[in-house]
């Protein structure tokens, strides 16, 4: 059984009374340790699929199993719990809390665990080492470059050692050099730490760094 099994997932939005289908009957498997890039034009449903997989949005039909657990049956409260344990989310615009330092931003997901302060510190320092930002621990987001902020975002996503890392256009807001650094970091997470990664991207160069590339067009996988 695959780590992630998506079966017959259908999703549509309504604009007034008009139904706008996003995708219909999508199937997809992601194996443990995969690094999958999900490409497609705007409005193809990439981010919607990512949100559904993260339990942030619910499909109209179909099922999603992660590690054998059907998440489409969970309540919103159960999904919040599940998300804190299984999902690491990397945003396009980093989305760090500006009032917290890099250290505190990374520590944030650990507040939902029963870890002691000392254990939380160990986890945060490890995550900072992985993203090579130990010297920036006490810096606020405004004191960091875009690339550094995204590395803090990645550290926050991996600090609780989630089952799967979901990245929504992680290099979309970065210059070429920073984008390369982020992609190298994601590759390292996948290869050295066996992290399963699903990355949504527009950028073909970014997609090349993944082990597999899937194309979503008008709600259908084309390749």
């Amino acid at each position: 059984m695959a780590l992630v099994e998506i079966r017959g997932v259908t999703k549509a939005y309504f604009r007034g009374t008009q139904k706008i289908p996003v995708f219909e009957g999508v199937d997809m498997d992601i194996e443990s340790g995969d690094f999958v890039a999900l490409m497609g034009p705007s409005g193809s449903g990439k981010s919607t699929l990512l949100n559904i997989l993260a339990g942030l949005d619910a499909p109209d039909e179909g099922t999603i199993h992660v590690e054998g657990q059907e998440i489409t049956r969970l309540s919103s409260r159960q999904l919040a719990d599940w998300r804190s344990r299984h999902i690491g989310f990397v945003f396009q615009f980093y989305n760090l809390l500006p009032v917290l330092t890099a250290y505190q931003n990374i520590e944030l997901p650990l507040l939902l665990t029963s870890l002691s302060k000392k254990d939380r510190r160990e986890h945060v320092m490890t995550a900072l080492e992985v993203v090579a930002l130990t010297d920036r621990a006490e810096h606020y987001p405004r004191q960091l470059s875009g690339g550094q902020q995204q590395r803090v975002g990645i550290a926050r996503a991996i600090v609780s050692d989630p089952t799967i890392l979901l990245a929504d256009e992680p290099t979309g807001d970065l210059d070429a050099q920073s984008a390369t650094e982020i992609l190298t970091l994601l590759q390292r997470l996948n290869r050295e730490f066996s992290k399963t990664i699903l990355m949504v991207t527009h950028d073909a160069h970014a997609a090349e760094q993944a082990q597999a590339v899937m194309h979503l067009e008008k709600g259908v996988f084309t390749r």
Partner: protein
Amino acid sequence: MTFAKLVVANLGRNKRRTILTMLSVAVAFFLFSALRTVITTLDAAQELGSEARLVTSHATGITFTLPQSYVQRLGAIDGVRRVSWSNWFGGYYQNPQDFFAQFAIDAESYLDIYPELQVAPEQRQAFLAERTAALVGAGLIERFGWRVGQTVALTGTIFPGSWEFTIRGVYTPTNPSFGDEAFYFHYDYLFERTNQQITPGWFLLQLADPDEAAAISSRIDDSFENSTAPTKTETERAFQAGFVTMWGNIGFLVRAIGTAVFFAILLIAANTMMMAARERVGEVAIMKTLGFKDGMLGSLVMLEAATISLVGGLLGIGGAFMMFRGSTPLDSFFPGFNVTTGTVAMGFAFALLLGAVSGAVPAIQSARLSVVEALRRVA
């Protein structure tokens, strides 16, 4: 990091706004405490008068005086143990704005009737022995920097001219509501300086049995009913309440205006808190993505609102408490003008309510927030 630190960090997001919001809440609660204190002081004044003393004044009003001959007639009424009398002087010391009460009294009988005025025995003797002597409250001594033995001149408004008095005694009241800013001097001095034209403003009667107050009052008023100076007799408490009733309209206005201003400021503060929460919709969505539950996020918002309102409340109520502690210039108008523990408790209850109300709406909005919609806005 802890949830408390997260609350503090969020409050520090826009320090100027947080401080201004806290200050506006503080002003509202200062206003609340001050106005509430006016009302509690007025209420306390109504309770101040004794039920064992009667006040006999002119039926038309206290600005009309009564004949001196009433002293003997009142003293002869069954159940009346002692009679004294008093007049309102209405002068000022140096500055007409510096108001304090001055009474011309029949000193010996007055001090006997009023054990609430505590005076050292030697000072009492000195006061009684000298026609131009004055007995003043400890509050006045402190306010004007007077001392015993000093000669002070009051300028009369009802009784024009400069009136010199020598301070021979200082009293302290047994009950703070009685006030310690009154100025007493001899009725004889007033009588003499007005060429024996003045007569008593009102009479004070000490009763043998307070239970007889109503019957004695009726008897007195009946006996003077057809005279040139009919009387109105009531217990001192009722007499005081009559004064407070004159304040009563002011009390109502204070209450009405204060409530309106208080709630206007609170609504502004609540709106500011809601605005601050609305600006953080994106961050709430991110925290939900990280796994924070609706209840947790709602609690964080509520805690922030409660912190602002409680700190503001503490500043406002605490400020009023400190400012009106001890003797203040307001004591001349409102003896015992102190923020009561009841007012403090009520203020903090309102502060908690403000925190709950202003935090509830953004907390519910946070809980109901669609993460997908919010993230789309952030992006």
